[in-house]
Structures are given as structure tokens and as C-alpha cells.
């Protein structure tokens, strides 16, 4: 008998505290599988956020930091600039990355820090009990928009990979989902490519993973998968938005040119 699917080395044996059906567990496993397959575990330094995955340092079997809320890209910058040999990755939720951490992610991406950002977007604040997130959908009910998110009052949800796609600096930007096997398989490809690009010292890499939060959405895991498919995917298109060109390296533009190629 040959084992064709087993427990990754880059995950600790701990049982996670995540809710039943929460896609965090799946995404942790995808990251761990990527680290295993690329042989990066012994060079990896992960940075846990504040959010449901605050205890990620107990789950990843590599060196880990715990960062202040939103500051993981800054911590990653410090770590990677001081030790470029490390494979530095952050693992952040929508509050951590798109709310309090908005400045840090944009500038880390703009500076082209050669880190990998795993952005878990479940359109709600999970750990603190279901408040509105910058990525909450219009009409979606949360504890801080109990009448449903009203764009004229709360604005529209933010599409992070599109926002970062406006930056000139080369990057790998992708959005995937984790609610069906087909999507999980595509997510795995994107996450592995992101880590591979960091191992090749190429560019900033980020994978946004559309995720479910059955508990705070008030649904079963199956209902949550359907809700994500019907409501989030039309607004947050899937795919690889940006890849570094094969020969693209940071360009020192001629003094006169304002807009490079």
C-alpha cells in the first residue's frame, strides 16, 4: 500500500482551534504542502496575524513570529531585509491586511519585498465575533452593520489584489478560493507558485484566498460554500492578475523617463 496523501511535515501535529468547516485549516495545509514540496521548511519564517489564525505559530512547523495587528508585512520586511536567505511569509485575515494593515501591505508590495502574503478573505471579522470587514459584501449582515452593509454609509468592499495591481513594482498577485475541491486544487497551484517565486528571489507574491466563515455567517459549512460561490466570486474575480515577466528585474530608469515600459 502506498500513501498518496498524508500529513505534511510543515504542519505540527496539533489539532487546530478553527471551527468545523473553516477553510483556515485547508489553507494552512496548502501552505505546508507548498513548503514541503519546494523543500523550504527549514528556511521558512512565518508571521501570524491577529485574527482567528493568531495561533498559527502553533500550527506551522517552522520558525514563526507573532505580529501586531496589521503589521505583519512590516515585520516581514524587517526579517527579509535583515536575512534575505529566509523564506518569509505572512498569513493574514481581512481585518489585519485590509483595514488596520492597509498601509503596511501597500508599501511592502510597492517596495517589492520578496515575501509571500497569504490573504484569507472571508468578508467578516471572525475572531472578535463577526463584525464588518473592509471586504464585507453589500447587504451582508454583521454585528456592526446589523441592517446589512450599506454602501452609501459604509462604502463598497475593497478588492485588494486589484488595488495592489495598480502598483508598478513587479509582483505575483492571484485570487483563488477554498470552498470546493476544484478551487482548492487551483489555490494549491497559486500558493506553490508564490513560494517558488520567492525561492527564486523574484518578487513580491500574494495569494488572496476567498474563504468561508460558517460560524459568523450563521450558516452550515455547506451553505457557506454556496454563499461564497454565489455572492463573493462575482465580486472578487478569480485568477492570476499579475506575474513578473520572465526577464523582469527592477529597472533603473533613465533620468528623463517618467513612465517606464
Amino acid at each position, binding site marked *: 500500500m502506498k500513501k498518496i496523501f498524508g500529513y505534511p511535515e510543515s504542519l505540527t501535529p496539533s489539532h487546530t482551534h478553527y471551527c468545523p468547516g473553516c477553510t483556515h485549516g485547508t489553507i494552512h495545509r496548502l501552505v505546508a504542502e507548498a513548503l514541503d514540496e519546494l523543500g523550504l521548511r527549514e528556511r521558512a519564517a512565518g508571521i501570524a496575524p491577529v485574527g482567528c489564525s493568531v495561533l498559527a505559530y502553533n500550527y506551522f512547523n517552522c520558525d*514563526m513570529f507573532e505580529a501586531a495587528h496589521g503589521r505583519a508585512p512590516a515585520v516581514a520586511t524587517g526579517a527579509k531585509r*535583515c536575512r534575505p536567505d529566509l523564506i518569509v511569509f505572512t498569513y493574514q485575515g481581512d481585518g489585519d491586511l485590509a483595514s488596520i494593515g492597509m498601509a503596511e501591505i501597500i508599501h511592502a508590495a510597492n517596495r517589492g519585498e520578496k515575501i509571500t502574503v497569504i490573504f484569507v478573505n472571508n468578508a467578516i471579522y471572525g475572531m472578535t465575533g463577526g463584525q464588518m470587514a473592509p471586504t464585507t459584501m453589500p447587504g451582508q449582515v454583521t454585528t456592526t452593520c446589523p441592517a446589512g452593509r450599506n454602501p452609501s454609509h459604509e462604502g463598497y468592499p475593497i478588492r485588494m489584489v486589484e488595488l495592489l495591481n495598480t502598483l508598478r513594482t513587479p509582483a505575483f498577485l492571484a485570487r483563488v478560493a477554498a470552498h470546493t475541491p476544484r478551487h482548492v486544487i487551483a489555490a494549491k497551484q497559486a500558493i506553490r507558485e508564490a513560494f517558488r517565486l520567492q525561492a527564486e528571489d523574484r518578487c513580491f507574491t500574494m495569494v488572496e484566498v476567498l474563504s468561508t466563515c460558517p460560524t459568523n455567517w450563521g450558516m452550515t459549512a455547506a451553505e457557506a460554500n454556496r454563499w461564497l460561490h454565489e455572492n463573493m466570486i462575482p465580486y472578487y474575480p478569480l485568477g492570476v492578475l499579475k506575474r513578473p515577466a520572465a526577464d523582469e528585474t527592477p529597472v533603473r530608469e533613465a533620468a528623463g523617463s517618467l513612465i517606464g515600459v
Partner: protein
Amino acid sequence: MAKVLMKGCEAIGEAAIRAGCRNFFGYPITPQTEVPEYLAKRFPEVDGVFVQAESEVAAINMLYGGAGVGKRVLTTSSSPGISLMAEGVSYIATCHLPVVIVNIVRAGPGLGGILPAQSDYLQATKGHGHGDYKLVVLAPSSVQEAVNLMYEAFELADRYLTPVMVIGDGMIGQMMEPVEIPPMRDLADLPAKPWAITGAKGRKPNIVNSLYLSEAACNANNWKMKAKYDEIEKKEKRWETYGCGARELDVLVVAYGTMARICNTAVAEVQASDNRKIGLFRPISLWPYPYEALAKEAKKAKRILVVEMSTGQMVEDVKLAVLGSRPIDFYGLTGGLVPSPDDVAENLRKILK
């Protein structure tokens, strides 16, 4: 070794390089912007990496990352930027990480002014970030002393695995004085850091973390930090006295940093012209504060005059040192005004009457 004429900010930057620092993360703010500018130019010459962060909030977190992977790291800022760093310093202290932070104090509070002040004493020694931690705070009074204390700050940070602040003021940051720069530290000779995040090869993963949900574990870490602070209090108090040799003093002046230098001139003048015995006590470590040494000198004096470029911050520690046994007067100017030796002398004479 020949002396070099250097601006305070630049000397601070060079001292950091000599101490083995090759990573700086900071943000421009007057009056310390010359430090990042100097290091941006100088670091490439020594294989250092300079990053201008998007804010002081980002800078302190970059410092956390750099310290966590075992490097000697530096940030510099001024009062409002130091306020922004408070959360980050709390995290760094709780994680037992060594960092050096420089505050070139400017007038406050709020946006304040860009001229020198000493109004961040309580922030540095009693307040700043949340939780039960202390910042080691060293206060130079000349550019040379700033260089010396910078060099030492990195040693202290690594020895005790704790954040260390060198607190100057706009005067020290901006003025130019001849300095002797220490020799370059051999990077291979720096203390080992087996706890650092260097990749879990052949060992269990290292975790740099300040989250302690278990009350017992959180309590334990707090007392572990307290034990460190107790040791620092025992071993690292620094101060200097001037003219305290007499058995009796009419007045003991207490001042630190630039203010101490100015008071030194005023004290010498009043002593000579008025034939009075006046001593000057200059704390160099603001935390741990040299309470015992100050109390000892205060016993000789009839009264104490505390002079600061604030409305009265260190005076609280002086009160603690003497515990009501001596009358304490205070003279201060702030907002960027720097008392002149004449101003101080006038106040001294008022008290002596």
C-alpha cells in the same frame, strides 16, 4: 585617533555602524532626519540595508522583524513618532528582543515644534507602551557622549535582550562637535542568538511571540521580565556629579542632557561670583534612575533645584529620591525655548536669597 567634526545625528548613525548595526528602519521627522539620510548614504559602503518605512508604526514593526532574526537593528525618531512606536516597543520588550531606539526630542505635546525640549522623560521612563515593561533610557549631554552611549546601547540591548533608548534633544541632534569614533566592531564577534528566527534546520522551531492567553504563562513572562529589570537596576545606573565634593552644599542642581551642560556653566558662574557652594547632579541613565546616588548627594544640600526643558517631568523622580527630606524648586522652559546660563543663574540666585 583623530577627532572628526560631526553633526549629532550623523555621529549617532556612525556610532551605530561601528557597534555592528547594518539595518535601519525609520521615517523622516525633524529634528532627526539627518540620521536616516546619513545612513542611506553610508550603509551601502558597509553592506548595510536602509529602508525608509511608510510610517513610524511600520518602522518599529520592521525593527521587531529584524531583531527577531538576530540582527542589530536601529530606528530613530522624534517625540510624535516615538508615540506611534509605543505598541511596537511593548511587543519587542515582551518578546525579549534587543533593539536600539533613538528619540531626538522636540517640543510638544501634539505636533508641537521642531526645536529642542526634554518633555518626553515621563513617556520614556514611566509610560510609552502598555503593560509591565521598562525601557532602558540613556541621556547623553554632548555629541561625544551620544556616540559612546550609542555604542554601549547595542551591547546592553544584546546583554539583557531588551529595548534600549538613547534620548537626546534637538540640540544634541543638530549641533556639530568634534568626536572620537569607536573602531568598527567585528560582525563575526557579536553575541550568539540561539533563540533567533534563522530557519528551523536541525532544531525545533523558534517562536517570537508576545501572546499569552494562559494567565499563568502571562504572569510568568511578566516576572521573567521583572527579574531582568531588577538586574539592570542593580548594575546599570549611571550618573555624574560636578562640584559635589564639599560636605555641605547650598543648592544641589539636578539636570540631564543639554540642560545639564547649561546648568554647569550657570553653577560655575554663581559659585564664583556669589561665593556659594553649589553642586550639580547629572543622571545619565534615566531608567534605571540613580535614586540612591542622588539621595546621597541631596543629604549634603539645603535645597534642590531641578532644571528641565519641560514643565516638570524628571522632578517627580527627584521627589521620589529625597522623599520629602529637602525642599525642591523647579525651573523650566519648554516649547523649544532653551534656558540660557543667565536664565538658570538668575533662578539660582532667587533661590539662594
